[in-house]
C-alpha cells in the first residue's frame, strides 16, 4: 500500500497549483490544442481569401445537427464533471452513474454526425463542394476522431471504476479523462460558430 502511494502522481506541484489527472494527459491536451490551433489558422486564411464561399456555406449546412452535437458535448462534459465531483465526495456509486450518463450522451455525438453526413450527402454536399465544405469536413472529422478517442477513454475509465479502480483519495485516472473530454468540448465550442453560426 505504501509502495502504491509512493508511485501515485503528486497532484500538488512544488510551484503551487494542481495538475488535474496527470502530467501525461496535459501534454496530450497541449498537443491537441496546438494541432487544432494550426487547423484554425488554415480555416481563417481560407475564410479571409474566400469570404463569399464562407458566407454562403453555413446556410447550406444543417444548423440543427451542429446545435445537437454542441448540446451533446456540453451535456456529456457536465455529467463527467459531476462524476469527478461525486468521487471526490466519496460517492462512488453516484460517480459511476454520472459516468455512464456521460458515456451514453457522448455516444450520441457519432450518431448525430453520421446522420448529419447522410443529410449532407442527400443534399449534394461532399468534400469537393467547395473550399468551405473542404475545411468543414477536415475540421469536423478531425474533431470526431479526437472525440472517439475520448469515448474509448470513457469506456476504459468506466470499466476501471466498476472494478473499484478509483476512490475519494485516488481518482487521477477519472480526472485525467474528464480533463481530456472538457478540452475536446472547448474545441467543439470553437468549431460550432465557425461553420453553423457565422454566415
Amino acid at each position, binding site marked *: 500500500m505504501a509502495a502504491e502511494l509512493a508511485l501515485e502522481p503528486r497532484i500538488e506541484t512544488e510551484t*503551487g497549483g494542481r495538475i488535474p489527472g496527470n502530467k501525461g494527459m496535459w501534454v496530450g491536451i497541449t498537443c491537441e490544442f496546438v494541432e487544432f490551433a494550426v487547423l*484554425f489558422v488554415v480555416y481563417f486564411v481560407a475564410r479571409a481569401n474566400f469570404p463569399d464561399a464562407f458566407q454562403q456555406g453555413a446556410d447550406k449546412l444543417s444548423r440543427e445537427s451542429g446545435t445537437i452535437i454542441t448540446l451533446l458535448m456540453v451535456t456529456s462534459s457536465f455529467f463527467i464533471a459531476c462524476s469527478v465531483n461525486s468521487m471526490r465526495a466519496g460517492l462512488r456509486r453516484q460517480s459511476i452513474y454520472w459516468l455512464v450518463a456521460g458515456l451514453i450522451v457522448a455516444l450520441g455525438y457519432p450518431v448525430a454526425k453520421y446522420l448529419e453526413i447522410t443529410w449532407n450527402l442527400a443534399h449534394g454536399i461532399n468534400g469537393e463542394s467547395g473550399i468551405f465544405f473542404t475545411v468543414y469536413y477536415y475540421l469536423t472529422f478531425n474533431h470526431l476522431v479526437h472525440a472517439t478517442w475520448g469515448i474509448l477513454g470513457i469506456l476504459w475509465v468506466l470499466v476501471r471504476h466498476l472494478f473499484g479502480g478509483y476512490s475519494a483519495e485516488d481518482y487521477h485516472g477519472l480526472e485525467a479523462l474528464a480533463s481530456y473530454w472538457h478540452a475536446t468540448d472547448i474545441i467543439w465550442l470553437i468549431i460550432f460558430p465557425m461553420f453553423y453560426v457565422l454566415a
Partner: protein
Amino acid sequence: MNLTPKKPSTALLPLTLTWLALCLLTVFSLGLGKWFHGANWLPLLVALIVWVKGMMIAHYFIEAELTHAFIRRVLKVFIAFAPLWLILTGFFGGQFAQWALSFLRG
C-alpha cells in the same frame, strides 16, 4: 486573511448552473446567426460568446484557477486564440488575405 488553499469542489450546483448557461448561450448564438445574418458586428459578438463559453468550462469544469500556472496559461491562450482570429478576419479580412497571400508567395 484565509491562507488555506482552495480545495477541488465536490458541489454539483455550480456545475449544473454552468451547464444551463452553456446550453442557453448555444441556443442564443444559433439565433444570432439567423436574426443578424450578415451584420458587421456579428463576428465580435460570436467571438465574445465563444470566449465566455470556453472560460466557463475552464473555470467550472476543469477548475483552472486551482491548476498549475502552465495549464492555466495554455487554457487562457487557446480559448482566446480563435475569438481573436474571428475578430481579425471579421473586420480586417481583406487585408489579412493579402498578407497571407504575400507570405505564402514569399
